């Protein structure tokens, strides 16, 4: 953007929002140069947006979009900013629309169990607010403290309590969205169950800000459970823990969520020698229900050769997780994470090929204790974390590894990403998962909503060959 255009745009934005909500100094724009996606090290400071704006109302967002639409300036909508696939990187500059000041809770409808909020409220802030009404959103993802409602919807965020309560995608009832021409779309009535119009709100789930800017969301909430519990057990290896996970899923017991993984330093959690893996099962509900479920799960653990962990240690997976998780990426160095969906019967094959064929080929290494990790249940995720390759062509080899992992997951009928979206990282890879007709349909939808391609351009959809 040349300087005179930039000056004009700045004036328009300041006239609309006031000085304090328009950021243009490099010091202020630094946090917007990238999200947590691994771009080339030398590109770390390459992509500055021209401006970041901090609207507080739908009307302000509408004003920003109208300015951008007139000038055909790219808009990058942002929530908490913890995305891992580059969907917030301003590759074409433009205006970064940071929704973090849009934090108001507009309505708590207790009888109908729903809440209407602005998009910038974090999942944690919303739960803090709902607690006073005896309600909760039920969405516990690792980035609970920073992930915003708008961001979680736009990436179809995960919740570790998905088995009982679903993920955010299942909780969206209605959205208000500012479209690329500045019009305000209300996707439908604030109801969960309707068989009338097209389910427009579903289009914005995982849309990564490419179709419009969410300015309001109505979400299904639940009464706070009377009690909660955790059953945790150690196993000889991951595959034994995985067997327990499969039994758990087949049993029909209503657990909230569960995770099986090969751990690192499990002795600190009281694991006997030789036990390398664990499973923890989260239970929420009324007292009698949770007690019965806990007994059932303990029996299942016994039957599958598990060693039951101490209850107080298990309970740390309830509170400490939500309070303290942040991924510890600062300690791991350059790493990336796999969050694929793999059909259960191909799980072992997937991991064997991942670590025995792909990893040595490209020089990626699993992080200690992060080789196997499975979120158990209907929204299961086969995960792992690895150190990026080093040395010559490191970045290229990393991209090739990402591609080959995507090929592996999709060849088994799975998905490249359960919850981190496409962004830049998988922009070309999603062609592995969708037919030409499906991709063209998506492009047509994009064109309909955003004919000038100003909404987060260069993300989500592959370039047309």
């Amino acid at each position: 953007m040349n300087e005179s255009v930039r000056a004009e745009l700045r004036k328009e934005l300041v006239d609309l929002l006031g000085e304090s909500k328009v950021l243009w100094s490099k010091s202020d724009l630094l946090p917007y140069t990238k999200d947590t996606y691994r771009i080339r090290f030398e590109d770390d400071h390459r992509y500055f947006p021209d401006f970041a704006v901090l609207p507080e109302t739908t009307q302000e967002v509408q004003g920003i979009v109208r300015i951008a639409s007139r000038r055909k300036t790219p808009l990058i909508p942002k929530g908490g900013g913890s995305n891992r696939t580059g969907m917030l990187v301003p590759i074409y500059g433009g205006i970064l629309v940071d929704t973090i000041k849009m934090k108001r809770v507009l309505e708590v409808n207790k009888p109908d169990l729903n809440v209407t909020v602005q998009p910038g409220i974090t999942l944690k802030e919303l739960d803090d607010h709902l607690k006073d009404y005896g309600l909760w959103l039920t969405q516990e993802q690792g980035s609970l403290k920073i992930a915003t409602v708008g961001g979680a919807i736009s990436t179809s965020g995960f919740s570790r309590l998905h088995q009982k309560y679903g993920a955010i995608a299942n909780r969206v009832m209605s959205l208000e969205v500012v479209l690329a021409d500045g019009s305000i779309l209300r996707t439908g009535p604030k109801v969960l169950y309707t068989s009338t119009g097209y389910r427009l709100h579903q289009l914005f789930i995982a849309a990564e800000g490419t179709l419009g800017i969410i300015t309001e969301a109505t979400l299904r909430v639940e009464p706070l459970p009377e009690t909660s519990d955790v059953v945790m057990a150690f196993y000889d290896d991951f595959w034994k823990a995985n067997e327990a996970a499969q039994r758990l899923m087949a049993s029909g017991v209503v657990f909230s969520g569960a995770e099986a993984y090969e751990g690192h330093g499990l002795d600190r959690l009281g694991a006997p020698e030789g036990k390398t893996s664990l499973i923890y099962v989260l239970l929420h509900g009324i007292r009698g229900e949770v007690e019965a479920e806990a007994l059932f799960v303990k029996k299942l653990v016994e039957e599958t050769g598990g060693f039951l962990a101490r209850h107080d240690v298990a309970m740390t997976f309830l509170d400490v997780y939500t309070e303290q998780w942040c991924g510890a990426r600062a300690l791991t160095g350059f790493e990336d994470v796999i969050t694929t969906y793999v059909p259960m019967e191909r799980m072992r094959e997937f991991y064997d090929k991942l670590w025995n064929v792909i990893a040595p080929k490209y020089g990626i290494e699993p992080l200690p204790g992060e080789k196997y990790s499975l979120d158990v249940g209907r929204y299961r995720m086969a995960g792992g974390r690895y150190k990026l390759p080093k040395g010559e062509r490191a970045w290229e080899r990393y991209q090739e590894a990402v591609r080959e992992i995507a090929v592996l997951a999709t060849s088994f009928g799975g998905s490249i990403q359960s919850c981190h979206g496409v962004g830049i990282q998988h922009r070309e890879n999603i062609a592995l998962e969708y037919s030409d007709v499906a991709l063209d349909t998506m492009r047509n939808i994009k064109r309909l909503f955003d004919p000038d391609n100003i909404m987060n351009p260069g993300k989500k959809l592959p370039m047309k060959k």
Partner: protein
Amino acid sequence: MNSATKAMLETAEACAMCRCGCCKDQCPMYSEIIEESISPKGRNLLIRAVCSGVVEPDERAVRIAYSCLLCRRDEYDCTARLKNAEAAESFREYLVDKGVPTLKEHEALLKSLENYGNPWQESRAARKRWAREIKGRKAAPGRMRVLFYVGCTFALDRSLQETPKALAHLMELAHEDYGLLLEDEACCGSTAKRIGQRQIFERIRKENEAKIRNLGVKSVVTACAGCFKTLKQDYPGLTEDVEILHSTEYLSRLVQSGNLRFKDSKSIVTYHDPCHLGRYAEVYDAPRKILKAVPGLKLIEMRNSREKARCCGGGAGVKTAYPEISGKAALRRLMEAERTGAETIVTTCPFCVQTLRAAAEANSSKMRVVELSVFLAELAIPTPTGAAR
């Protein structure tokens, strides 16, 4: 590159590697301003960019550098436990060392430190005014075991002088032998250190260290959490042979030995952990033990207490440079205290008392904000000489 700068860059690099932003959740500055750059993460990215020449240390960069309370609340939320506050303080030193003009709002503090030995533009003689009504004597070499180091804010802010009087009263009730520096006491240098003026701090430190050593005392007791943190952690030479105690630690010992007793109280109180006493020095139990030693008193914890306590907004030069934000942070903490149902907030730092009290007054809160020694002096009862020794 000195070791502090090296550590600062390591923290900034590690943070840039992660960029999760968990630090924002309870950051008192971010909570009020809500801008990405005003957070430990934003500041770490700035440190990295300024030090590598990507961003000029212009006026805005300096504003961001000085928009941190150094409260360390974020470190609880950072799984990697990055020392963001330490990096922020080092960044200020880095900017000062590079000759970058810093905040105008801090100029008066520095001038006052130079001229009067305190940051509050009060004469040296004013420092002893609070002590007119007490029996405490002036410390002289080899004459006493304990030096009561009052600190600039308790000694010079008239609304806070009740604290040194109360602590002196408690020491006298417990028959403790202590001395005061009165007009010879000088600032511990905390203010200078927190705003990045390392050279000024070093001069102050050397002078104070010599003065205290010369007295030959075994312990230095202070009620100011800022002085305590500074003397204990930033005077490495002094702590080798002088024990630095916060008044809460000192009074807790007196309570434990039976030399300090209290009458019954029906008070319902909540305790606010000052950052310098809590997260910096991990003194969480001593004040609570003392409060629990008051018969009948009910102590209710705030939702965020101990290592999770939110900052009052008064630290690290923020109150001087950003009074409005500081006031908002204090109000947020006050509201948290109100939700406990307690009628009194007890705390142990002059800045916490100032900010929380101002927030209570400005918002017509019924909560009483009181420093611990003052609260205890109202309840303490005499003990026979040496009864429990």
